[in-house]
């Protein structure tokens, strides 16, 4: 496990990354000769093994029986398959219901942020607006506020509306976010202004222009926003922890931690819960990688 870190120069002083020798094994060799080439591969493989080991262990452990999981030294391969873990976990916690909660929560947040961001980005990119820079500045400013610093007043607000432990309470504070507005506006501005004017002159209404002309051309940007928003909503922990109180209202993220809090927690069941909860995001990461890259690094280049 610590192998993930051992090969990294983690003990290096906290200086700027650019000035630190990041590749100690390679520095003696001037050209990528045989040795430094091999050393590079070794570092890469060790890093990959360190990164993938917890994933591997979660998957393997989810079908391990108590015998394997409690053995010493720890078993790294299952000696017998216990697929019933993946079934039994549904009886320990209401996992099916929590799955539904998570799908609804992340789905509603994603849908709402897409719609509201498209509208706002369109206004910023194409419509005449007084104080445009100022209003856009206000949107940007909200991105700088760490959610954790305003979570308490949000909790008080949602609770005062009687929405604690309800689906609306779970999603309301996240239905709108400036991140999507920021990213989509950037993308909309690439659209040729003349085409917009021409469509307008042709009598094309704003909504029709959006739906028929602009959005079909913006699929990559929309996908980037959707993937990013869905991932972060699905993975939320702090807010669902605060606002939900009964197992049937909790999301998956809270559910799987309840598994490990339970008396006489069975690691096989815990890991089965984790594996089931990670499947949708795993699919997104593997198949939607290019959109993730685009969403995650928006802003890193310029």
């Amino acid at each position, binding site marked *: 496990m610590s192998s*993930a*870190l051992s090969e*990294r120069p983690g003990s290096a002083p*906290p200086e*700027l*990354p*650019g000035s630190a020798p990041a*590749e100690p094994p*390679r520095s003696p060799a001037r050209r*990528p000769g045989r040795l*430094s080439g091999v050393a*590079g591969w070794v*570092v*890469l493989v060790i*890093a*990959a093994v360190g*990164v993938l080991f*917890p*994933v591997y*262990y979660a998957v393997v452990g989810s079908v391990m029986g108590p015998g394997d999981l409690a053995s010493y*030294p*720890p078993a790294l391969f299952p000696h017998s398959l216990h697929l019933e873990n993946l079934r039994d976990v549904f009886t320990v916690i209401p996992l099916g219901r929590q799955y539904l909660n998570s799908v609804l929560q992340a789905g509603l947040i994603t849908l709402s942020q897409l*719609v*509201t961001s498209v509208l*706002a980005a*369109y*206004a910023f990119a194409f*419509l005449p*607006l007084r104080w445009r820079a100022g*209003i856009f500045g206000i*949107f940007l400013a*909200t991105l700088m*506020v760490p959610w954790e*610093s*305003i979570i*308490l007043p*949000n909790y008080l607000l949602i609770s005062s509306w009687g929405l604690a432990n309800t689906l609306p309470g779970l999603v309301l504070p996240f239905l*709108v976010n400036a991140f999507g*507005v920021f990213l989509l506006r950037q993308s909309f501005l690439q659209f040729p202004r*003349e*085409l917009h004017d021409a469509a307008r002159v042709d*009598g094309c*209404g*704003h909504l029709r222009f959006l739906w028929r002309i602009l959005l079909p051309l913006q699929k990559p940007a929309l996908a980037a926003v959707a993937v990013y928003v869905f*991932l972060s909503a699905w*993975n939320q922990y702090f807010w669902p*922890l605060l606002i939900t109180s009964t197992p049937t209202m909790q999301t998956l*993220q809270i559910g799987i931690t309840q598994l*490990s809090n339970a008396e006489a927690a069975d*690691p096989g069941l815990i890991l089965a819960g*984790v594996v089931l*909860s*990670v499947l949708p*995001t795993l699919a997104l*990461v593997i198949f939607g990688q290019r959109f*993730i890259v685009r969403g995650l*690094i928006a802003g*890193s*280049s*310029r």
Partner: protein
Amino acid sequence: MSTIATTASPEPPTSRVPTKGTDLVRTARRRREPFIAWIFLAPSLIGLGLFVFYPLVRSVYLSVHGNDIFGGAGAFVGGRNYTQMLSSPDFRNVLVNTLLFTLMTVVPGVLGALTVVLLLETRIRATRAFRTAFAIPLAFSAASASVVFAVLYNPAIGVANGILGQLGIDRVGWLTDPSIALISVSITTVWMQFGYGVLVLAAGVGGISPEIFEAARLDGAKGWRLARSITIPLLGPQLFFLVVVSTIQALQSFGQIHILTKGGPDGATTTLVYSIYQQAFAFGSSNFGLASAQAMVLMLIVLACTALQFGVLERKVHYS
């Protein structure tokens, strides 16, 4: 409206001299457009107002008020929550933990990602598989990652101690030893965020013009020298971005601490965010005033990081 417009349509869009008919239509439309703009902005503005700006104001309000046992705001107390916070040794401990946690996640995370990306750069054929491998932890939430690591860290049956045992090293109380617990939480955090760094830096390398590499190679630069004098300097903006974003993420980390250690043992992993949570919600304390004062500190630190980022990036844009 639309019928008039269609009859006037065959005009080339780029023309700067519109005919009289379209001119009228345009003027009429233009008058309505600012109104439409506000309608389009309204959902976002309402949402941000209710769930960002109003809570911001209320945070400030709560931080200068006492509170009753139900967490309602009590009498105005001025800066008392702040002086109480700043004079408490617990809070100093919290700030130290936050700083250590930030260093222990940002430095190894960024250097590790840089190492991997530099090594991948010369191994084109393997890049895709490795990049996917490093991206997989991104699918794990703070909760799922922490639950897995809690199993690995288990003192009796965990693999972490199992491996140490095989190496002849004594068992470690990964989450129960006050001098180790913060490191254990940091390892989990680095694992979760490592793939993000790889993606950002790899995208940065992909954005460097191949001609630059070609020219450098013709000049005989290879391996570490190529990395040091070409790749790393050109990755400057991405490295800087990664450091700032990782720092902000570290400052906001909550799930892994709550699941793995609950801030313990003996406050050893209580960071600023976790302290806010404890003051407001843990042990039925409901000390919303003190929690809000700490939330203000968190916000100021994160704002400073973001301002730094925007300031420097702004200069970079003018530079290129």
